């Protein structure tokens, strides 16, 4: 066995009101893939940002190849051979793919950017990423989220770093892209690099990783140097501090009458008229590959986009929503897929984020808002959904992704909503929180609401939904009942014929 290449020794990181990492020590070997696991807010991303020089430690240190390192900024970390693929996209939307790939190290000749080499390098790495179809001159903003994530990975590969860390890379990747990523990770390991891999997906850990370290509440819980004697359940209980037998915990329930019916809806992002219905008490899944048009379809239902043709019936009436506001008043709400850009108001408090819509119920004299009741309402949901935050007045931007998602969900739980449209509700969310979110969805269904879940996670849709609609290239190809929904069948329908 080789000696560890990267040693993290007693690292502590503090933010106002939070100790994000508390005296964490572990080590990782060259030529291995080391998984980092933990609930949302456990401190995984913070640790990676320590590695990359973004976050500074208040105690402890890093040792790389036996040398003690303290990085003042990202440049120093890059120079020391550390590349990080961040959880949040860090691309410059109006620059080309090639320029984003080589940002910070653009090839130069006589002081000018060497366009030929730039293009060649970009083409090579795109090929490597299995994204050979992307033109390196395309602007990044024109790519899908998954492709952007691949660009992010390509940028790290081009650094030729000794230590490469991935922060939840698969959360927005399609099936093929995930496969490609796994190949790349395996190759990096074989080349003798240190690969750190943050994920919430258990199956990836067992499939790709050689070692795993678990964090909880900023503390190091355990490091398993080998995965041989580790089971799914041990990891889960180490992460959440208690045992969870089945994270999906599906419950059967009665279904009521039809809540919403789509008749031949067609419009932007959809290629053939779509018809289906959702009953009260039903959890309907929408599965498909990234870009299949699921979000677009539901955006038309929720009044974000106007359908070109077709008719929507809701609660027995024919409806037409010109704005999301009208849909919400009628009882349809959407939790968008991209939390950061569509969901939260990052500089506003948790309470403001939560009460944005429902504060109309807490009015005084007909027009003044009632901060006391708003804050009580926020506390209520913070308790009920166990949202981890210092308080309702904390800026939501500092919360972890899972907790942000719970705040957005609370936003609609507090409203009079009959149909919940959840677009990728568990993207980037840990097992514990996922279980809680699933339980909430069942709860809603049991109370006679309708739920539509858009998800790219095959295991998830087949486990939690009563029926699963599959979309492909903007078309609803089939709706499969739960008991017939084998992963093979769903994937077969979703993949291009």
């Amino acid at each position, binding site marked *: 066995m080789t000696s560890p290449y990267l040693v993290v020794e007693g690292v502590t990181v503090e933010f106002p009101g939070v100790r994000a990492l508390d005296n964490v020590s572990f080590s990782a070997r060259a030529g291995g893939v080391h998984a980092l696991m933990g609930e949302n807010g456990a401190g995984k991303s913070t640790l990676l940002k320590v590695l990359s020089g973004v976050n500074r430690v208040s105690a402890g240190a890093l040792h790389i190849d036996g040398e003690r390192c303290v990085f003042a900024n990202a440049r120093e970390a890059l120079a020391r051979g550390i590349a990080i693929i961040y959880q949040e996209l860090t691309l410059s939307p109006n620059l080309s793919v090639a320029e984003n790939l080589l940002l910070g190290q653009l090839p130069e000749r006589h002081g000018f950017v060497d366009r030929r080499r730039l293009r060649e390098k970009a083409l090579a790495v795109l090929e490597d990423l299995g994204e050979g179809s992307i033109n390196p001159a395309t602007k990044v903003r024109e790519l899908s989220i998954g492709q952007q994530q691949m660009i992010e990975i390509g940028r790290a590969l081009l650094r030729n770093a000794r230590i490469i860390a991935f922060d939840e890379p698969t959360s927005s990747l399609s099936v093929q892209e995930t496969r490609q990523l796994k190949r790349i990770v395996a190759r990096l390991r074989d080349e003798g690099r240190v690969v750190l891999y943050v994920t919430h997906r258990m199956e990836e850990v067992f499939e790709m990783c050689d070692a795993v370290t678990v964090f909880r509440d900023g503390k190091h819980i355990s490091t398993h140097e080998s995965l041989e004697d580790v089971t799914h359940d041990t990891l889960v209980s180490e992460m959440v501090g208690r045992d969870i037998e089945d994270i999906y915990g599906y419950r059967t329930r009665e279904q009521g009458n039809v809540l919403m019916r789509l008749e031949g809806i067609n419009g932007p992002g959809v290629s053939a008229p779509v018809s289906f219905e959702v009953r009260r008490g039903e959890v309907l899944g929408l599965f498909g590959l990234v870009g299949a048009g699921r979000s677009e379809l539901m955006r038309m239902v929720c009044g974000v986009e106007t359908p070109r043709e077709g008719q929507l019936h809701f609660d027995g009436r024919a409806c037409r929503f010109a704005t999301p506001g009208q849909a919400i008043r009628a009882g349809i709400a959407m939790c968008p897929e991209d939390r950061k850009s569509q969901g939260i*108001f990052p500089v506003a408090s948790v309470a403001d984020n939560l009460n*944005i819509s429902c*504060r109309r119920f807490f009015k005084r004299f007909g027009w003044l808002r009632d901060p006391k009741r708003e804050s009580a309402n926020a506390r209520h949901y913070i308790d009920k959904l166990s949202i981890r935050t210092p308080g309702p007045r904390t800026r939501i931007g500092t919360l972890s992704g899972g907790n942000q998602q719970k705040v957005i969900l609370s936003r609609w739980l507090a409203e009079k909503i009959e149909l919940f449209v959840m677009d990728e509700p568990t993207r980037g969310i840990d097992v514990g929180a996922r279980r809680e979110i699933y339980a909430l969805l069942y709860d809603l269904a049991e109370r006679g609401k309708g739920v539509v879940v858009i998800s790219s996670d095959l295991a998830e849709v087949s486990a939690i939904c009563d029926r699963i609609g599959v979309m492909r290239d903007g078309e609803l190809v089939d709706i499969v009942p739960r008991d017939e929904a084998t992963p093979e069948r769903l994937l077969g329908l979703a993949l291009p014929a």
Partner: protein
Amino acid sequence: MTQEKTGMLQSPEGRRGLPKPIRALLDTSGLIAVFILLFIGLSVLVPDFFTGRNIVGLLLSVTLIGTIATTMMMVLALGEVDLSVASIVAFAGVVAAVVTSTSGSVLVGVLVGVAAGGAVGAFNGFVVARFGVNSLIATLAAMEFVRGLAYITSGGDAVMITVPGFFDLGTLSFLGLTLPVWTMIACFVIFGVMLNFTAFGRNVLATGGNAEAASLAGVNVRRLRITVFALQGIVAGVAGVLLTSRMGLGDPNTSQGLELAVISACVLGGVSLSGGVASITGVLVGVLIMGCVQNAMGLLNVPTFYQYLVRGAILLLAVMFDRWKQSRRSRA
């Protein structure tokens, strides 16, 4: 952004010794502390500064900036900016003067003047909200256009007002303060309450923080934008009419450069230019700091040229102090 990151290191061990209220004051708002220190300093050092009549004069001198800053705060909170306010002030004033003189009725003149301001504001809002034109450029265009309208309405020359009742507006006084001062106070109260205690105000902040998310959360972003710009227009119109009545004439040349003064008062008061962050006390303090400095320079007989230096330096120092406080706080 860079500061934010570097700021996050050490432990909160600092200034434990200070008494709690002072600590809280320093922690919550660096700028209020700056203002209080400045005010005390000026009262002690500048003769005649802390006298009743000077304070009344000081208040009167900030009415124009102060009144308009309240709605500019809303516009900035929305993530937009309005450069046309100075032109609106001139235009509304000229229109009020012309209409009062021709109709002979003060009420009609005032209403038409304010309505003219509101119309320009609503138009700005419409262009920004409906066509998605950047508000800086839309209101820059409006600034030129409306100034032109003011010149055309007035024939280029200041318009005299022949109806004596009109002058009373500007001099009407209650509890020792005149109508323009009361108007400013009213605007601070109204827009302070609106920002903090109404759904409308919170929606403005939410839209400024993330317009797409606000729209998805059911906020009618388009209507919100138009309303906020229209309010800005109305308030600028009111300010213009009061200015005209105080001066006794509608001057199409008036208040050039006012927009930058108003925006700097807001930004000095901690309003973020990228939207989503605003505080009415901050704006009040920003306005007062600027007013006090200007007033004290007058009392101290500072030569004009050096007044430029002082104004520039104060602005810079105040903002830098505020940044420093913030990074200190986030470090704590």
